[in-house]
């Protein structure tokens, strides 16, 4: 479409937030020798450009410049993509824009083809995965109804199949927790690599911190959150010196078994008595621990009756329990 700006109407309303700046570009009617383009005809004789977040002044300036210079009429002939449809010498002007349009269109089609092929293949894959899910459900119901004696080994095998497919485990026989050999291995690994960091952190670390630590160290083949939790659940069964612990608040931590409950509470009470009173933030600074875990220790000591609280908008403060 050939256009020449007939008038540039600049409507700017800057007071009301709803309205945004607009530039209206009025178009000449299309000439009879118009070349093919994105649209052959249109019922509108103008284009409205809407500027939601500024830019209209700069744009209008550049548009006026281009309209004056008419650089597109001076552009060299670029080789047309589809040579079969071009023969006229007078194509110099439109090739630029139309050529770009064509290239974009082809790229889009190519991308669409890739994606739709991917989706097709994906659907087929899902069909097969669905069969696996149905089979696993059938096996699970048989196990539940005790139709057939599945040995413990076979149960573990079944669980690992479910793990591979990402199917939730419907069989809740807690022989080794919800874990598999994979989780047992993980638990043992954790038992080794977590000892030093735990010592440093006063014997306790939030599970989210452990997750970050372990995955950052791995770099690839990362653990899922569920992998970590399932591995931690096996500490006790495997007689490893770590324990998974869930506080009343829902916070999950890994704790060194050597750090006994009594020690933690006693040291918390000592610290509070020494300072008269402590908030979680102050306690955290004192111990060099996270605020979250410091709070849990104070809460624990409170639960056991050694501390009492003063809860105000200024914060939660703990005092030795003199009652």
């Amino acid at each position, binding site marked *: 479409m050939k256009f020449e700006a007939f008038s540039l109407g600049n409507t700017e309303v800057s007071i009301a937030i709803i309205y945004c700046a607009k530039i209206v570009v009025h178009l000449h009617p299309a000439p009879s020798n118009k070349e093919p383009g994105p649209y052959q005809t249109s019922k509108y004789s103008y284009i409205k450009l809407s500027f939601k977040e500024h830019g209209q002044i700069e744009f209008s300036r550049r548009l006026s410049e281009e309209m004056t210079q008419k650089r597109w009429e001076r552009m060299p002939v670029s080789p047309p993509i589809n040579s079969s449809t071009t023969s006229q010498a007078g194509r110099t002007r439109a090739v630029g824009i139309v050529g770009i349009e064509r290239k974009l269109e082809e790229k889009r089609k190519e991308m669409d083809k*890739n*994606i739709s*092929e*991917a*989706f097709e*293949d*994906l*659907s087929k*894959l*899902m069909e*097969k*995965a*669905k*069969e*696996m*899910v149905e*089979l*696993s459900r*059938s*096996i699970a119901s*048989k*196990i539940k109804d005790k*139709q*057939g*004696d*599945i040995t413990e080994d*076979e149960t573990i*095998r*079944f669980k690992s*199949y479910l*793990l*591979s*497919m*990402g*199917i*939730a485990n419907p069989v809740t026989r807690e022989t080794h927790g919800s874990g598999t050999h*994979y989780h047992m291995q993980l638990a043992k690994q954790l038992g080794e690599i977590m000892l030093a960091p735990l010592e440093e952190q006063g014997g306790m670390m939030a*599970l*989210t911190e452990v*997750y*970050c630590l372990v*995955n950052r160290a791995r770099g*690839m*083949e*990362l*653990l*899922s*959150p*569920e*992998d970590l*939790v399932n591995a931690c659940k096996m500490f006790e069964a495997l007689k490893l010196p770590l324990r998974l612990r*869930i506080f009343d*608040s*829902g*916070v*999950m931590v890994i704790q060194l078994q050597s750090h006994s409950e009594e020690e933690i509470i006693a040291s918390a009470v000592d610290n509070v008595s020494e300072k008269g009173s402590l908030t979680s933030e102050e306690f955290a600074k004192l111990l060099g621990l996270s605020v*979250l875990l410091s709070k849990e220790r104070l809460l624990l000591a409170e639960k056991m009756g050694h501390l009492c609280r003063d*809860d105000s*908008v200024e*914060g939660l403060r703990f005092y030795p329990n003199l009652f």
Partner: protein
Amino acid sequence: MHRRGVGAGAIAKKKLAEAKYKERGTVLAEDQLAQMSKQLETFKTHLEEFASKHKQEIRKSAQFRVQFQDMCATIGVDPLASGKGFWSEMLGVGDFYYELGVQIIEVCLALKHRNGGLITLEELHQRVLKGRGKFAQDVSQDDLIRAIKKLKAMGNGFGIIPVGGTYLVQSVPAELNMDHTVVLQLAEKKGFVTVSEIKSSLKWETERTCHVLDDLLKEGLAWLDGQAAGEPQYWLPALFSELYSQDVTPEEASEMVP
């Protein structure tokens, strides 16, 4: 004439039939397990083939990831359940989301002292993108939400709260009930609320209003501006937009104070 189905003979026959069925039952379950093992191998091959053709698609296209996840959910499969799962190993979906989980945790931890553990999805998105660097793969908000849903497995109160047209991401185990949530939603427009606004919009009594606001203050989710003209304003740092807030280092902060 023989009467069928009665007498000692019939009982014995029945017992024999039952035993045979039981035996069959045993065979069936074990059979199925063996069948599953074989089918698993076949499936693995199909998945490998799919991965060789389309693994890139998953990494590049957020739209494809959404489609993929939705299809998995429909058939009852969780591709992110375990790093040891086929999906994770062969398509690399696992590493993508688990790493994102790490980045989300780190951002939330870094900002917790300021916003009490509550952050808008937008801000989280921006900061995660920034942390990933220019050359890393793009992540969408949908990706973030899925990663956060997985983080819930580790306790620690990761949650998603709808407010206005977007979401707030909670990363501390603060107990936020309906009252808290609705006040957060009210505050979303301006970043703060006042007692009278709450009372007039939600038709609450003063006591209920103050109780909820006190809770938010205690959790560090709200800051009190007692110097505001009119009545005190309760600001939510989580809702501070780029307009209001600036990242300032401790050195810069001490320079700013006269």
